[in-house]
């Protein structure tokens, strides 16, 4: 009465094929990049790892929200808001104070975005509309906190994300740890804990979740709070990378668009409940790495952008066709 059990390898591939494929693609791309430039060493690894931190964090946050059945168009606004707040508050402070500020900014943003999740639940306004609005509000806050680019942070704080006090160097360990540790933690939290599973459940089938006693309200609030925390982390990483704050609206808007593209390429369904943070992170790094690769091949940044957009469309079209064929066979 069971469907014939598929071979374990095939089963694994069906479950994790997309994630594995995205990581494989990342490895291939980096290897290709290594052959394109005269010297590929720890400087380049550091550069890729640290510069992809903001988009990686933003994608993790977006991934958690989307897995829970929502979407957060406000992550970009949160990024510039936390970047502005951190740069404004941290300027000239000692490392201890700076770290306290970082924790405070993180917690405050998580709380604020948890409130957004609460509003979505209570108002029954679609996620996309609420977060469109909160995105405006966050961006406004960013400009209020820091009217024009500026501010600063402590060298030690920059080291934490970039591996050097000046933000430029060859020590790739801090950045690599910053990518892998949160990814692993969130991925495990999502599939091992009851709260994490309830986020998957809410996104997969809200009605079945409710019937089996899952607190879908709470799951949504938690997902948005975690999304907020990671958007704040992205803002903090930006502060550490640039050593300053920049409240420009377009930076947030671009980052938000990239986070959505990254999670979709990473195999997370915008309908919720499907996909993994691990794939989204690889896709986020790919989106970043394409820039230096296309530059190395000789494309100017504008052509690179066209190619990137075209690639996203092509991948999504192929995915759409595959899905159509799969449904026909069912």
């Amino acid at each position, binding site marked *: 009465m069971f469907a014939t059990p598929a071979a374990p390898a095939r089963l694994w591939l069906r479950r994790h094929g997309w994630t594995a494929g995205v990581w494989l693609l990342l490895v291939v791309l980096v290897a290709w990049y290594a052959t394109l430039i005269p010297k590929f060493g720890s400087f380049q690894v550091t550069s890729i790892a640290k510069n992809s931190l903001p988009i990686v964090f933003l994608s993790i946050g977006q991934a958690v929200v989307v897995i829970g059945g929502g979407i957060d168009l406000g992550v970009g606004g949160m990024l510039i808001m936390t970047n502005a707040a951190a740069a404004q508050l941290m300027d000239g402070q000692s490392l201890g104070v700076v770290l306290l500020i970082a924790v405070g900014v993180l917690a405050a943003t998580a709380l604020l975005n948890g409130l957004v999740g609460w509003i979505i639940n209570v108002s029954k*306004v679609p996620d*996309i509309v609420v977060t469109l609005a909160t995105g405006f509000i966050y961006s406004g806050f960013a400009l209020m906190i820091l009217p024009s680019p500026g501010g600063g942070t402590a060298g030690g704080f920059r080291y934490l994300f970039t591996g050097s006090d000046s933000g430029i160097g060859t020590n790739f360990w801090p950045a690599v740890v910053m990518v892998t540790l949160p990814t692993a933690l969130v991925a495990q939290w999502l599939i091992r804990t009851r709260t994490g599973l309830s986020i998957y459940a809410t996104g997969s089938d809200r009605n079945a979740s409710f019937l089996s006693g899952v607190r879908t309200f709470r799951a949504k609030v938690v997902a948005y709070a975690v999304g907020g925390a990671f958007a704040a982390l992205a803002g903090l990483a930006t502060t550490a990378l640039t050593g300053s704050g920049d409240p420009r609206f377009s930076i947030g808007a671009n980052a938000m*668009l990239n986070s959505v593209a990254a999670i979709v390429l990473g195999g997370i369904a915008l309908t919720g409940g499907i996909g993994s943070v691990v794939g989204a992170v690889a896709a986020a790094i790919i989106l970043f790495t394409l820039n230096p690769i296309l530059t190395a091949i000789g494309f100017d940044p504008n052509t690179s952008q066209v190619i990137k957009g075209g690639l996203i469309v092509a991948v999504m079209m192929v995915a759409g066709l595959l899905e159509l064929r799969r449904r026909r066979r069912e």
Partner: protein
Amino acid sequence: MTAAAAARPESRRVAARFVADHPLLVLGTVLAVLVAITGVVERDYLSFDGLRNTVLFAAPLGIIAAGQTILMLTAGIDLSVAMIATGAAYVAGNQSPNGALVAILLGLTVGLAAGAANGIGVGVFRVNPLIMTLAMSSILVGLFTSWAFTILRGSTAVTDFIRAMGGGAFWDNRIPWSALVWAGVAALVIVGLRATGLGRMLYAIGDNPVAVRLAGVRAWQVLLAAYVLSGLFAALGGILLAGKAGAVDLQLAANFLLPSVAAAVIGGTSIFGGVGTYSGTVFGALILGVLNSLLTFLDAGQAVQQVVYGVIVLGLAWLYSWVTSLEE
């Protein structure tokens, strides 16, 4: 339940039904209050001169939001409108030496091409509209940034005709020409949505795509038409913006993307599709226009403006959702 306890929810329901049945009355009230407040803040506002600036801002926004409204009715969205508008403006600026007609037609071609590409991606390949139009936006940014230094190098100033259309006014400089263009677009869209088969299908596909398929409609045809229309309206809006500014640059319409969605949401169009009107969006664009003027008079700056935008969108969306839930 006692009679008194029953009566209150009943009166609430009546109120909700009233709001639901007369959404334009509510929006009109909000608009009137905002205009009055602005008039109090700045005496000169309540004149042709004062109101003209609001309309000059609201007309391109309203036209861009026309496409957004059409797409939201189909449960879609177009995040590439700002770049389509900018691209169309760029082409129109570049072609200005060849005459206004050529400039405008070639500008609209940008909207036609980008909209058709969006429509094929969403309608035929079933790419999520958010992703499709986002990627399109990114492609257009790249294309026009590089073209600005190559094939589109040269004139960035638009001809006098487009300048008049986007920024000029008639009847003793009282009524902006762009208001006239907008009125034409509004008539076309309102009648089109109400009294054509395509209008019916746009609503229907957003309301229940399965039902539409079972009625024999091929969804991709409807979606393709919708995205092409959105592209064309965005392009027209961009050309008006170029006329208003007098010259084009790559940031021309960047700040119109989210307001175009906001105008439709404020006007009562559901992002889930099937419900909404363009007349609502017209009010939405006017409300955002008056807000823009008010905040300028208050010297509030962009920061406050964005927060206010956000609060207005959230507040009205909440009100609509509350009304619908009470109606049940």
